[in-house]
């Protein structure tokens, strides 16, 4: 989005509701399915007004039955319509992996393109005081499913633009938002506009080190970049936005300029987003120094002190960058 484009300030939830409202108007075959998305307006009010405008036949409250909900949405999509299924917390997506992974993502391949499943599964990740089974970020599990696209916006404008694209995709999309993004607000272009998948965004330019991140982690990464700027270290913060497909050219071009990459995620490090990004970057920029930061290898506690202790924050991100750059300085020339 160009800085000059006319824009309006919206809460994160309103950006989601706007994308849904516009696409519900444009696509009479689009259904919304989820727990409390009807008259209640959604767990974060991100479905507010949709039930009143489009009615209970297109905005459907479902039972607490995630496997059935996603299976229904995939079936609706395979039958020629389109569905968005809201899974309130990403932890419960585990219950619905079979219809999403084994059916929706494979349908186009199994039928030689005769059938497709244009279904969006929207879910909310992240830790915010709700404990072991309501806090997880399992997007890395989903990045390696052929046929499934995965996006994770970090601001209202990207939530709007990426959800617009998701709702026009010919195949299944996992759209991941975050509990801590819902209290935020941001400028969203007034003009109707979709953001293409596979397009990362440089949130802050810098010459010394690249930080790759997505979703809520963009916020502590930007805070860390501000801390380090005071020490004379210029961080380039890259918001991946799209995890599958990854925008490798933007990340590698950044790392080629800076020579160093720190990946940051709220999920686990082992086989995580950062592991994948770092390896792919090293294939293109072999000399790059890389380091990863993610959650500690433990469940996220509902105790706020233990929750904070398990997750990356701005001081830990800054410390990881100091270590990375220090090791680079001391590196023996090849």
């Amino acid at each position, binding site marked *: 989005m160009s800085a000059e484009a006319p824009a309006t300030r919206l809460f994160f939830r309103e950006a989601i509701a706007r994308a849904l409202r516009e696409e519900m108007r444009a696509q009479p075959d689009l259904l919304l399915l989820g727990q409390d998305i009807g008259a209640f307006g959604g767990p*974060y009010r991100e479905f507010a007004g949709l039930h009143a405008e489009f009615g209970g036949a297109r905005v459907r409250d479902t039972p607490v039955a995630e496997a059935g909900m996603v299976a229904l949405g995939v079936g609706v999509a395979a039958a020629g319509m389109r569905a968005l299924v809201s899974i309130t917390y990403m932890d419960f997506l585990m219950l619905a992996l079979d219809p999403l992974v084994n059916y929706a993502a494979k349908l186009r391949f199994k039928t030689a393109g005769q059938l497709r499943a244009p279904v969006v599964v929207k879910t909310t990740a992240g830790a915010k005081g709700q404990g072991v089974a309501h806090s997880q970020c399992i997007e890395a599990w989903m990045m390696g499913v052929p046929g499934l696209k995965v996006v994770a916006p970090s601001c209202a404008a990207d939530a709007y633009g990426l959800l617009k694209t998701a709702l026009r995709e010919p195949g299944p999309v996992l759209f991941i938002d975050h509990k801590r993004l*819902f*209290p935020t*607000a941001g400028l969203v272009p007034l003009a109707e506009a979709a953001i293409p998948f596979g397009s990362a965004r440089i949130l802050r330019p810098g010459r010394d080190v690249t930080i790759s991140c997505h979703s809520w982690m963009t916020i502590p990464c930007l805070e860390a970049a501000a801390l380090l700027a005071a020490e004379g270290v210029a961080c380039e913060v890259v918001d991946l936005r799209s995890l599958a497909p990854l925008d490798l050219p933007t990340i590698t071009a950044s790392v080629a300029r800076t020579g160093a990459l720190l990946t940051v995620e709220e999920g686990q490090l082992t086989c995580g987003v950062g592991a994948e990004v770092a390896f792919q970057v090293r294939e293109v920029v072999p000399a790059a120094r890389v380091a990863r930061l993610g959650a500690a290898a433990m469940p996220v506690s509902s105790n706020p002190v233990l929750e904070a202790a398990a997750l990356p924050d701005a001081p830990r991100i800054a410390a990881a960058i100091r270590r990375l750059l220090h090791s680079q300085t001391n590196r023996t020339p090849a």
Partner: protein
Amino acid sequence: MIYQLQVPGPIKDVAEVRVLEWHVQPGQGFAAGDLIVEVETHKAVVELRAEQPGFLRRILSAEGDWQQVGAPLAMVADNTDEALPEGPDGLPPLPFGFEVT
């Protein structure tokens, strides 16, 4: 006496609000308990109700405006003729009650 009406807080997770609707217009009086203005947070509507009678003198944040918690929304006074200062800086805050719905 002239006061400033401020965005209420603290409200959990709320840093900024949007002014939804003024229920008293400049020049109008209000009684204790009257709804003066509604503001919107990321998930709720907050009603600001007067705790003492007074007059709304000047609105500083129009409907649709965004404001941080603690920022001035309006200048209010005990009467209609006391001259208003240029801005709200230094004015005592008007006591009010607020309810998050």
